[in-house]
């Protein structure tokens, strides 16, 4: 799962850092060396990474909710087991990513506090509801498909701990994408009601999936610095186009129609050309006014509050039996 706010503001890159150090740093990046936690790095690089990794981690954690919504109603035991494993993987991704962020000097507790206070971003896609079983297929196929497009290049990100976390995450995401497509295929080849369910899911998830890649390059002012630092390797529009080119033939294979009357194959560019994206919708969701922003944050807050006494108990126990037991962080 991924967040579209890839182009985290890099602020004024390294105003307080000496030019020679910055040059040496940039030279290491240009040689494709990995930057490791104990290496010197410009403060703006550190902050840009913290913001991006935290948004990614939060997206994994919040992303557990829309899919978790169908675990108790999965229509077969095999589907139930696969969905539990998938949602659990997302929790695991959140954990590696929070750990990667911790190497940059910020704790998981601090990052979670920011999320719960509504000060941190996560992917807009998780603010949409899962209304039918087909949505579980559509999320795997489209949302995880889009995530993979975004994340494969991150395996070569200049920051070592993030790049290494992404290698493992990408392997699991590709399994998620396949299981999503397989759900869609089963529905598309099933009864009329199942096909209608699949079509409706594609209708609702198509545009939000395209918006996952973030604003168009024309409106994305931070891409250049992130590219120079090799935090980001392709622009939002390049990745979005790649996703469309891969996904449209898959929809045709499923016999489902993409909800974009203007979509067509452009022989000149050898790409599918989509109709205009309604960016005002993305802005609305990012502002916190999407269909489920309120529910998602409330669910995270409720779990955190309900778990407070448990974390306190674990900490108290660990305190009493110091050195004998592992305790949880009571943050």
């Amino acid at each position, binding site marked *: 799962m991924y967040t579209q706010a890839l182009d985290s503001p890099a602020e004024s890159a390294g105003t307080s850092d000496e030019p020679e150090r910055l040059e040496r740093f940039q030279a290491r990046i240009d040689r494709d060396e990995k930057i490791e936690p104990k290496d010197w790095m410009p403060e703006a690089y550190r902050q840009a990474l913290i913001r991006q990794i935290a948004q990614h981690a939060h997206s994994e*954690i919040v992303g*557990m*909710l829309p899919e*978790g919504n169908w*675990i*108790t*109603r*999965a*229509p*077969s*035991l*095999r*589907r*139930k*087991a696969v969905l*539990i*494993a998938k*949602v*659990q993987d997302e*929790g*695991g991704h*959140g*954990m590696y990513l*929070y750990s990667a962020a911790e190497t940059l000097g910020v704790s998981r507790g601090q990052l979670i506090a920011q999320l719960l206070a509504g000060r941190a971003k996560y992917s807009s896609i998780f603010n949409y509801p899962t209304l039918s*079983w087909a949505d579980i297929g559509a999320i795997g196929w489209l949302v995880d498909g889009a995530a993979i497009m975004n994340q494969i290049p991150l395996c070569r990100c200049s920051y070592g701990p993030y790049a290494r976390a992404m290698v493992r995450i990408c392997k699991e995401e590709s399994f998620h994408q396949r299981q999503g497509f397989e*759900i869609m295929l*089963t529905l598309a080849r*099933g*009864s009329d*009601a*199942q096909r209608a369910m699949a079509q409706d899911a594609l209708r609702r998830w198509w545009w939000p999936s395209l918006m996952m890649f973030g604003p168009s390059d024309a409106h994305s002012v931070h891409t250049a610095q992130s590219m120079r630092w090799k935090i980001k390797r392709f622009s939002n529009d390049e990745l979005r186009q790649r996703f469309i080119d891969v996904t449209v033939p898959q929809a045709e294979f499923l016999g489902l129609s993409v909800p974009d009357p203007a979509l067509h194959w452009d022989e000149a560019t050898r790409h599918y050309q989509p109709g205009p994206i309604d960016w005002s919708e993305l802005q609305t969701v990012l502002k916190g006014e999407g269909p489920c922003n309120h529910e998602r944050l409330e*669910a995270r807050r*409720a*779990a955190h509050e*309900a*778990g*407070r*006494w*448990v*974390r*306190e*108990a*674990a900490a*108290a*126990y660990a305190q*009493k*039996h110091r050195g004998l*037991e592992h*305790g*949880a*962080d009571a943050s």
Partner: protein
Amino acid sequence: MSATADDLTAQAGPQERFEYVLRLADTSLIAGQRLAALLGHAPALEEDLALGNIALDLIGQARLLLALAGRIEARGRDEDALAFLRDAQEFRNVSLVEQPNGDFAQTIVRQCLLDAWQLEMYESLAGSRDLQLADIAQKAVKECRYHWRFSAGWLVRLGDGTDESRARVRSALDTLWRFTDELLTPDVLDARMAVCGIGPAPVLIRERWQTRVRATLAEGGLEWPRHQHYRWHGKRGEHTEHLGHLLAEMQALPRAYPGVTW
């Protein structure tokens, strides 16, 4: 002349074996269904992952056992037909596992009481004369060891944590203790299976369960709860009100769209 192992297995009729396997299968299924609902809502990320793991193991056990039950019954019902197309009174899980998740103390107490039982059951069933059941038990027992380590660890931590955690865990024990007699009190079928060499001797399970749970309660500074008479017989289909709601949710799709593939 003494009967051989095969003769003994053969003495247990398919209907009895079906019922017995269903008890194990449904207990895992309903426990897994309950835990899975917590994924994404646990007190910490580590607990989300652990509860998800346990739920996954339990659903996995249920699938193997339901498939075995379907083969024994030989009426063409597969794991999904048995899970999704039976009504509450046809379910054979112990009543403990259908109790709501409640707070984390209630979830942990329910799981701990179950884990101690499943661990002893599968340890014994691993040597069952029903070789298919023994195979499943050999896999399940490894999982149950981990489940027990997790839930017993938390029971101790909550018992010996803060005043609040101790009060909550005591309250959960008081709420759920009345369902433990069903785990430990054999009925005719449990006794029959033991005689046939398929199931363990119930007295053995009771003793080992009590030893295990007593030691863990003591480690957490918790008293053995007072005995409460039990009224629920989930093993023969007499359930609490909770199971109907759980099944209404779990079975919604296969019931609404019969005969399709998912």
